């Protein structure tokens, strides 16, 4: 036991100074008695900081190079936006797909939505054969996402609680291509119909076999 004759306190420690007044403590410590509170251990570790910096550097330089070539040697189109979109999508995948701690259903639903948005933007603004993004990519991406989330839920049954909301969202999204087809925005029917059919099939499956989980999920998410 050590003492501080300024603060008139006693303390059991192997440190040399009083925590209150920072003056030297009197008396001898006992090294066999451990400190009450633990030592500092660095815990927070940045994920690959150098790699991140290199990637960031490469990203910014390539965007600048692409933009400058495009602007200094104009050919009437802003073609550089296509590779730039690709690069930005890479970052989205890195941030929300790989480094995020969200559950996998969210990652897939989110990344699919962003991918569809980017590809549709490219399709609207460039290219000779317009409409491919809406006609083929959108329904098939939704179909793939739908299938993937349902398979994961099927295999990892325990976590259906966490996934079902994202599955429902993607199912609702899958109805959109068919609606667009009705309004003649989409010309080719069969991809949208396939995506819609699968979505409907999964939805009916959940409603008939797991009615309670859907009801509970909606109750939870929308309680006021």
């Amino acid at each position, binding site marked *: 036991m050590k003492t501080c004759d300024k*603060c*008139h*306190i*006693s*303390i*059991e*420690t192997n*440190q040399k100074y*009083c*925590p*209150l*007044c*920072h003056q030297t403590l009197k008396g001898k410590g006992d090294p066999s008695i*451990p*400190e*009450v*509170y*633990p*030592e*500092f*251990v660095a*815990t927070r570790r940045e994920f690959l900081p150098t790699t991140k910096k290199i990637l960031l550097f490469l990203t910014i330089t390539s965007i600048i190079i692409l933009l400058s070539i495009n602007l200094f040697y104009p050919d009437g189109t802003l073609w550089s936006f296509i590779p730039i979109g690709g690069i930005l999508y890479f970052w989205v995948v890195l941030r929300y797909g790989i480094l995020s*701690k*969200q559950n996998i259903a969210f990652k897939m639903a989110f990344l699919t939505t962003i991918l569809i948005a980017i590809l549709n933007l490219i399709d609207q603004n460039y290219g000779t054969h317009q409409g491919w993004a809406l006609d083929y990519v959108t329904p098939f991406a939704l179909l793939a996402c739908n299938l993937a989330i349902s398979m994961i839920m099927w295999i990892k049954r*325990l*976590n259906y*609680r966490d996934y079902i909301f994202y599955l429902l969202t993607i199912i609702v999204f899958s109805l959109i291509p068919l609606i667009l087809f009705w309004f003649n925005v989409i010309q080719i029917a069969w991809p949208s119909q396939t995506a819609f059919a699968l979505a409907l099939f999964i939805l009916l499956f959940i409603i008939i076999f797991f009615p309670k989980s859907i009801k*509970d999920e909606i109750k*939870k*998410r*929308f*309680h*006021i």
Partner: protein
Amino acid sequence: MNNNNKYREWYKLDNSAKIFPEVSTRKETNTFRVQVVLKEVVDPDLLQQATDSILERYPMFKVRLKTGFFWRYFDYNSMPFSIEPLNHMVCGGLSPKDNNGYLFKVFYRHNIIAIEVFHSLADGGGAYMFLKSIIYEYFVLKGYDISPDNMILTKDSLPTIEEYEDAHAAYYDPKNHKHMPEKKAFGIKGTPISGDLVGLISGTVSTKKILNLARANNATITEYLTAIIMETIYITQIKYREHLKQNQKPVKIFVPVNLRNHFPSKSLRNFSNFIKSDMVMNRSDITFEEILDLVKKQFKLGLQKDELIRKMSENFAFEKNIFLRLTPFHLKKFVMKLGYSLMGLSLNTMSFTNIGRVDFPESMIPYIDNISAAVYSGKFNTLNLGIASFGDKFKITFTRSIIETTIEREFFRKLSELGLDVEIESNYVEVYQ
């Protein structure tokens, strides 16, 4: 437990819990720690087993935080929970993404068993019940001959609805929720400790002696210590500088009140309110007696049933408002953040949590050495205080987010002047880095 009797799988956040997820950051963590020191070295494997078995009894703790369209909610958490060795962080942030989504942690180190709880989950009263149950199950696994004596919820009892209801809703009075505007409080300034670290200095004194001192002044321990703290703040921070602008603000000590002692509720969630001392200290001739008299008067007023219900209903009225309820969550979040930054933290100089005397069944007492409580310290409330007593060990725990220890030093020097033997513990945050 059969499946038909299964507890609910999700919970609304109770009234006081709603604000914390929106305003918590790495600096303002809104967590608190309760700690029990045993007379023997803790066995981590048994502690893990004890925690696992008792979590089934406390479904309210076996949750993760999720976001709905209008409100956040707690959803059943199917992931396993694991205990950890105590680390250097005192009341560090509990990110919903880490820790398998659990909003509390169980720590062990030598003789210490501690839990840190995010304030949305429970208040000090609820957390202590939980820790007691863990320790009871731990002792049972150790093979000790102990009995719960109706003071501890064991894993064999069943959870009841009252434990999980929002007790605020039960005692809310729609006619008594007048909002009383408040002035900003004096803030203790200092050099921030880098890296969001928190310094902890804890002093142990004799319960009997401090109780006698308080009684000699015709005050309760809370009133007496609040007055000492206010005097210390006055002497170290304000005296001879009374004319400065920042020293015109009142010194306000925020003291949480356990409403379970005032209303017959068994809630294990949040059910606490507060009383406050409030004094403008811009004179050079303030005496201790004057402070103590004022504190006694203000605490007495604050503890009246009407006033407690008013404070509770003031917050609850916010939740009752149908327009607010129908606002999408992210907008609501923005409103809550704004409201809190305008009037939340800066209304208190310091918070002073008195857990009080902690009771254990007779048969468990020989195995326990002491008990303490600590609350986080952040950007504005740079110094906070938590006290708890067990037997004759009265532990006064300061947590601070600034390097300076002036107030702690003067406070403990004052206690030794009054004739108390003070034994100090510190996490020596100065040598961290």
